[in-house]
């Protein structure tokens, strides 16, 4: 067997030390009638070579970014991953260790957590960060729970339609059996409407969740949303795109009390949606309500600086049902990757990456809109994504024919927004070249010629 050692001789020696006749006897505590009594119905074992061939065959039935040009976004993006991130992320002293319960034997991981927390606070402009949560959506739901407990307001939380639909769905699931209602407010022109928000937010409101840039890629008037939110005494939860902070204001700078994000873009692959990295930062006053692991610096018995898991009285293993959250396993390896990634980029690299996303996406939008079939669904400025309206209302055909020519051209929005059934979301990262963007534009415009012919017959 591949990964265990016991030879027949070992087994004999071990069994006699135990005082058992056979391995079967060791399972005697399981009542006989509960035993399976047959072999599991699973495919037979594969050698490493066969496994490799089989997995390659499965993988070959997929079309990854790289084989098709990826303009898909909506919370998962095809950003570049520098080699250093893979090198450090594949150090098995990191990836084969557990949560650092024994601090003395885990200073590497603990210092990485501390550095990660520090970088996230620099990034967000907030005081503290935890050591990671599962993903952006569950981090948003945890932030909402935190806001409810911090404000003592159990009435409602407000989520604009411009918040990622899957984030809204996750928040709704988390709150389903609690007293708090999730109130979804419509947007105007792709962004929060201050009047509608002012109407909705009241003294029962625990928080407003603002995505900046929002699901449609539009830049919201965050300062205004914050003003309205704070006037009612509610907390502002910002859902941010880490990459955008190379050019946009940080959540802490526009008044967010809690900031959460999907952090896979900081050095981890799209991997069909996970594992990802849930980022969470908050103001100092909220730290004891924070979910998840937190590392802190202290001194050891010899007076040396060292790191340790801290404020554990918030956590499930100490507080059980009174814990701030049930989270135990987090996304440590992805926090490590994000730490390496941010160190590799540095301030200038982050600025330049953000700027490339901005310039290239705006170029792509402009080029597409030169064609009469396409227009921007919203006029608000965008960062790296934008919504294109297809005047012929044939989004599925259009995207299908683009795919045939090697482009993952965009995401149809009808599934989440029936009123946007004629629209699709396009994301352009720093990886996309001008040639690829021009290729996308010419493909979509050609596709449009091809599909529009039979439509007029």
């Amino acid at each position, binding site marked *: 067997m591949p990964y*265990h050692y016991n030879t027949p001789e070992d087994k004999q020696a071990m069994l006699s030390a135990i005082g058992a006749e056979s391995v079967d006897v060791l399972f005697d505590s399981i009542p006989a009638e509960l035993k399976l009594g047959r072999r599991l119905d699973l495919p037979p074992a594969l050698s490493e070579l066969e496994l490799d061939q089989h997995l390659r065959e499965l993988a070959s039935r997929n*079309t990854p970014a790289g084989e098709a040009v990826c303009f898909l976004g909506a919370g998962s993006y095809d950003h570049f991953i520098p080699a250093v991130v893979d090198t450090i992320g594949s150090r098995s002293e990191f990836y*084969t260790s557990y949560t650092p319960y024994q601090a003395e034997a885990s*200073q590497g991981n603990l210092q990485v957590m501390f550095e990660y927390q520090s970088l996230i606070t620099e990034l967000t402009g907030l005081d503290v960060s935890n050591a990671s949560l599962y993903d952006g959506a569950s981090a948003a739901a945890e932030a909402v729970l935190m806001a409810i407990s911090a404000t003592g307001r159990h009435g409602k939380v407000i989520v604009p339609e411009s918040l990622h639909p899957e984030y809204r769905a996750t928040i709704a699931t988390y709150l389903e059996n609690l007293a708090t209602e999730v109130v979804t407010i419509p947007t105007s022109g792709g962004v929060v409407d201050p009047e509608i928000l002012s109407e909705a937010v009241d003294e029962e409101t625990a928080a407003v969740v603002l995505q900046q840039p929002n699901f449609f890629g539009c830049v919201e008037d965050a300062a205004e949303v914050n003003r309205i939110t704070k006037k009612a005494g509610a907390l502002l939860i910002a859902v941010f795109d880490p990459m955008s902070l190379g050019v946009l204001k940080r959540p802490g700078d526009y008044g967010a009390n809690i900031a959460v994000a*999907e952090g896979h873009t900081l050095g981890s692959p799209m991997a069909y949606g996970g594992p990802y990295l849930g980022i969470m930062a908050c103001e100092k006053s909220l730290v004891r309500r924070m979910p998840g692991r937190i590392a802190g610096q202290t001194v050891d018995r010899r007076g040396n600086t060292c790191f340790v898991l801290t404020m554990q009285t918030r956590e499930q293993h100490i507080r059980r049902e009174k814990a701030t959250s049930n989270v135990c396993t987090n996304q440590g390896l992805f926090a490590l990757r994000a730490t390496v990634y941010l160190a590799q980029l540095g301030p200038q690299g982050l600025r330049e990456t953000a700027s490339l996303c901005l310039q290239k996406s705006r170029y792509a939008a402009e080029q597409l809109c030169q064609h009469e079939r396409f227009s921007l669904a919203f006029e608000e400025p965008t960062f790296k994504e934008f919504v294109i309206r297809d005047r012929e209302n044939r989004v599925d055909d259009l995207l299908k024919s683009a795919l045939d020519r090697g482009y993952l051209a965009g995401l149809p929005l009808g599934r989440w927004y029936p009123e946007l059934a004629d629209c699709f979301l396009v994301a352009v990262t720093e990886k996309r070249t001008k040639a690829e963007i021009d290729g996308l534009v010419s493909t979509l415009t050609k596709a449009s010629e091809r599909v529009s012919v039979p439509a007029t017959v």
Partner: protein
Amino acid sequence: MRNSRDTQLLCELSRPGRRAARLPACDVPERDIADLLPTEATASSPPALPEVTEPQIVRHFVNLSTMNMSVDTHFYPLGSCTMKYNPKRNERAAAMPGFADLHPCQPEETIQGMLALLYEMQEYFQEISGLPACSLQPAAGAHGELTALLVAAAYFKDLGENRSKVLVPDNAHGTNPASAAMAGYRSITVKTTSDGFVDMADLASKLDDEVAVMMITNPSTLGLFEPHMREIADQVHARGGLIYLDGANMNAILGITRPGDWGADMQHYNPHKTFSGPHGGGGPGAGPICVIEKLAPYLPTPIVRKEDSLYALDFNLPKTIGRVRSFFGNVGVLVRAYAYIRTHGPDGLREVSENAVLNANYLLSRVKHILPVPQGNRCMHEFVASANTLKKDKGITAMDIAKRLLDYGFHAPTVYFPLTVPEAMMCEPTESESKETLDAFAEVLFRITEEDAELLHDAPHSTAVSRPDEVRAARQPVLTWAALSEAN
């Protein structure tokens, strides 16, 4: 050998003007940022990240890595965590561009291989648990607990039943009561006896029509198979409640017995334990759940379906609880688990459990002469020893022993869990350790108990740092570089 110059904090290594990444020149006509974005929204300068070079980064993190113990470097018998070998072929599999570079919203026709793998995983998890429906969405064990409890809540709501309680044995993992509370339930503790089993009288006194779910860990956190399992399930079912199985300990029973066959209605898996997903210094994991037929309509969506030879995502479950996260699930972890299951096949998986249980019993047979194991002579995949006598006699605690083990090159067992055993030391050797390693561990443990108490109180002596001042860390939290300069 560690070089401590380069394990200074990144902020200390930083010098203005240094940089690692160079980005391509912008190849589209560039415009002034002020023309593209409203000035109120833009930052005048980027966040103050450290400025370091690539060689510095590599030296920094590689040196930090040497300050960890890990499965690849040390025996790591951390009970309940199943620190088994993490196969390298799994890592290679997950990194294949055909899996790693897939966007979660790609059209189904471009991800047929991915969906085939995920469909198979649903089937495998169902077969191993004996439960007929599966959701791969949850991101970790605790997330699976929460998801399943929300599924149960939706089911009861649909039946029009108002049930507010979840029963949790006192030796359960902390995530169980925490998940119950998050799902909107009241968590009620059920006692266990000194043998480590559910106290049937206490259960009877707490089981009523308001109980929605009883969560049970079987084999338990003491590494024992619950002898009253069937009875417990029958009693809970008789009052209309459901049984949730905390599947953290599946490594003991693969192919031997199945939760669905003893009355479990729902369970999670920890593929990062049982199916060799590496723990990553804290994560990621995954928390797929399996449930009985009548709970299937409430599972999160999407679910992978197979129609003829095509795979498709089914979002159309009218009674679904919705989502518990974005996108499909922790797919990278599931790819590793798939590689692990395919490598073993049905006989191999059974052998995993047989060897895990053999190793644990062997270690138990050696350790019980050194430290008493209150709950008996036999165990499943792990056992809980107690340093209580040593503490009374010599003042040596479980923590002292744990710390001293580090000096001898062994990671410590889980200590002070479960809470029902005083001075608990929970040992889980897993199947991927040799007899020699187990012998060496037992010998070292014996040697430690003979050592001078003072020496142990001050242990570890050979690690990069000695015991941290945890009280200071909690009372005067220093959680970031910025706080560091404030503190000085």
